[in-house]
């Protein structure tokens, strides 16, 4: 009970906690330095924008995942939901399923606006269903979204009937392939939404409640926070990002297919965790998630430039996620003792 040591962090500078806080950023810069030395092409602006564009989709998903993980939740269904939402968007853009392979102006579609809305609507609905299952049926998020992973993938396969839907109007593909002042559009979308999400989490009542629910759900309930609404809301937010990510991905690839986004959940959860958000809830930030996302992107890009086998890349990502959580746990126990 009595803790003479408890006041340690009031006074004095703790080098370790400073390091722990900025570890992802420091690691990112080190990694970039190493790659720059080993492979000069790495630092070219073309390559750096390339990295950014590659991570922008998983980055969007990682923003949503940060909300989820802050409440000590998890969402494994995002890759499947993204595939399903992407197919729906593509079908809307093509005006149905008949013209799935036709390319060109003769296609009668509904325009990118409706397509994007459809993708986001599918994402929101998927998130809502899972959020309700978690809060009303009291099924753990892990189980609900593991189920969702299978349900949405099945729905995507059923919807696509086995084949991709490709060939959109230029104003559709601009969202994935276009540039504004040489900055890829997906990168801009990612960064704008990251800023908005940062503001929501840091400076709004809702953001506070997300941290509170993740930090101690019972205390949040007894302080008058509507815990179930907050929990359901983060899955809906996750769904929004899955839908948006689906639209941008289909625009970039000029195609939507049922196997899109396979394995994204791992990359996305890794980005969030590497960025310092605790899987136990209540601590983390969008800034960290952006850094974590870039870190994974830089790592993969550097490995590609150095001709490392893509299967090896998977192994490396897997190891890194475990190390990141181990580091988090270590830093916590250290903070507790110090």
């Amino acid at each position, binding site marked *: 009970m009595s803790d*003479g040591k408890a006041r340690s962090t009031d006074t004095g500078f703790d080098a370790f906690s400073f390091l722990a806080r900025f570890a992802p950023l420091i690691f990112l810069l080190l990694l970039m330095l190493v790659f720059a030395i080993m492979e000069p092409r790495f630092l070219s602006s073309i390559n750096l924008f390339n990295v950014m564009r590659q991570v922008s989709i998983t980055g969007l998903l990682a923003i949503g995942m940060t909300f989820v993980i802050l409440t000590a939740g998890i969402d494994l269904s995002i890759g499947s939901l993204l595939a399903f939402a992407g197919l729906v968007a593509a079908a809307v853009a093509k005006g149905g399923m008949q013209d799935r392979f036709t390319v060109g102006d003769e296609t009668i579609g509904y325009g990118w606006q409706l397509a994007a809305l459809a993708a986001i609507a599918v994402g929101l609905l998927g998130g809502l269903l899972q959020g309700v299952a978690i809060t009303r049926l009291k099924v753990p998020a892990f189980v609900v979204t593991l189920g969702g992973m299978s349900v949405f993938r099945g729905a995507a396969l059923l919807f696509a009937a086995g084949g991709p839907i490709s060939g959109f109007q230029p104003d559709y593909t601009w969202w994935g392939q276009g540039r504004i002042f040489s900055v890829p559009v997906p990168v801009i979308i990612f960064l704008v939404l990251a800023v908005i999400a940062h503001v929501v989490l840091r400076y709004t*009542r809702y953001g506070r409640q997300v941290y509170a629910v993740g*930090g101690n759900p019972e205390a949040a*309930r*007894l*302080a008058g926070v509507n815990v179930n609404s907050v929990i359901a809301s983060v899955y809906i937010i996750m769904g929004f990002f899955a839908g948006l990510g689906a639209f941008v991905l289909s625009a970039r690839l000029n195609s939507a297919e049922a196997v899109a986004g396979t394995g994204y959940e791992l990359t996305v959860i890794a980005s969030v965790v590497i960025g310092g958000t605790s899987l136990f809830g209540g601590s983390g930030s969008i800034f960290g998630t952006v850094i974590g996302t870039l870190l994974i992107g830089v790592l993969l890009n550097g490995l590609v430039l150095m001709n490392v086998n893509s299967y090896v890349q998977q192994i490396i990502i897997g190891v890194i996620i475990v190390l990141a959580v181990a580091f988090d746990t270590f830093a916590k126990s250290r903070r507790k003792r110090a």
Partner: protein
Amino acid sequence: MVETGQTPPLLRMRGISKSFPGVRALDSVDFEVSAAEIHAFLGENGAGKSTLLKILSGAQPPDEGSIEFDGRSVRFVSPQEAQAAGIVTIYQEFTLAPDMTVAENVFIGREPGGRVFISYRDLEEQTAALCRRIGLERSPRALVRDLSVAEQQMVEIARALSMKSRLIVMDEPTSALSRAEVENLFAIIRNLKRDGIATIFVTHRLEEVFEICDSYTVLRDGRHVGRGKVAETDMDGIIRLMVGRDVGLLAAREESFNTGEPALEARNVSRRRKSTDSSAIELHDVSFRVNRGEILGLAGLVGAGRTETARALFGADIFDSGVIAVGGREIRVRSPRDAIASGIGLVPEDRKQQALFLALAIRTNLSIAAQDRISSMGVFISAAKEDALVEEYRRRLNIRMASPDQIVGNLSGGNQQKVVLARWLALRPQVLIVDEPTRGIDVGAKFEVHNLLVEMARSGIAIIVISSELPEVMALSDRIITMREGRITGEIMGRDATQEKLMRLMTLGQPQAA
């Protein structure tokens, strides 16, 4: 000095120092315990008790100093080593596996039998013998989950005995026990003493020191400030050592701020046991009223239904029937949000589990219930308004903190409790229910919390105080109602109350007058 000269003490810690970044937790502390002695180890929160006990139990190494146990110089690097030497620590949070049996828990890691298989017959026979020795009337095969807190504590003691311990450290063993259970624990400790086993007894209830302990050691701010025989001192003497000043503790209140206007009324609130939760306590037709500016004490032994009443009024638990009215108007309370909207606040009994976000900043902890007061445009949090709010309550409640962004988990227990109180004050409630407001906080902070509650009553808030410490209830309350087994059993004015009268109402349980 307790040194008698003839026999060396069982335990002698000398010049123990320990520093953590930014703080010197222990500064050359000496600590001695004789064989078969019951030794009170006292100090406010933050005095360094836990750190010293961790060093003693091998959980942490000291920076400096030496430890002698049973005449030999020792240096434990793990709890296992300390246990092997005969020092066992029983923490407040038990280290039992709830889904294993009593016997398995007692001998966990040291099961009798061969290299591979456990001999369940030996295991259960040995456990049964230990249980008889300490009076635990439970089968060795009972699941720990089904035991009461007091019984689980006895399992911990049985485990300590099974390790042939010579010194048992008990960290606040009585804080979760009812009076009868405390008596029973004390009987066990006296028996251990007869068998030559020494006990280090950490408690915040000073009266217990005089009831059971032979000698005492007091720490303050990481330094050893006094030790001696309990028989040669008194309560004031020990409090003076602990706080380093005279404290007019628990002086009965002179003025009353009871306005006579009803603030909260409960009528026939009842709650039946659900089949899913067989351990839940029932409430039977609980009816009472508390006025604006009045402090109402709710007294009862553990399990009497005090906390359950508070949680029902606050909407934390659903009750089956009955009516609650605030300011004369009936309200529907289905959740804490409903209660808060009606002006009811609750400071729950378990600060860390039920009130605080330990890893989050003070500002978040303080303002979470009163976000309306610090928001701009209904959506955003205004940093300026929030800073002003935190500063207002830091000053009013004398919260000792470095900045609003400091993590709440790093504050002392007393300051944490003030943050929780500030959270509710910021909401400007009409009724505030405080459940064990001073549990686990030091004497100085306790005094401040008491003054604060009185100040709140003065400002017109109706306050319901639940406390296991009768002197606290008596000192604070205008009026006290007693409960037993989910029923109200009596009512007494604060100025007429004595511990004996209250204890009679709490234990005999005369039915409530209609």
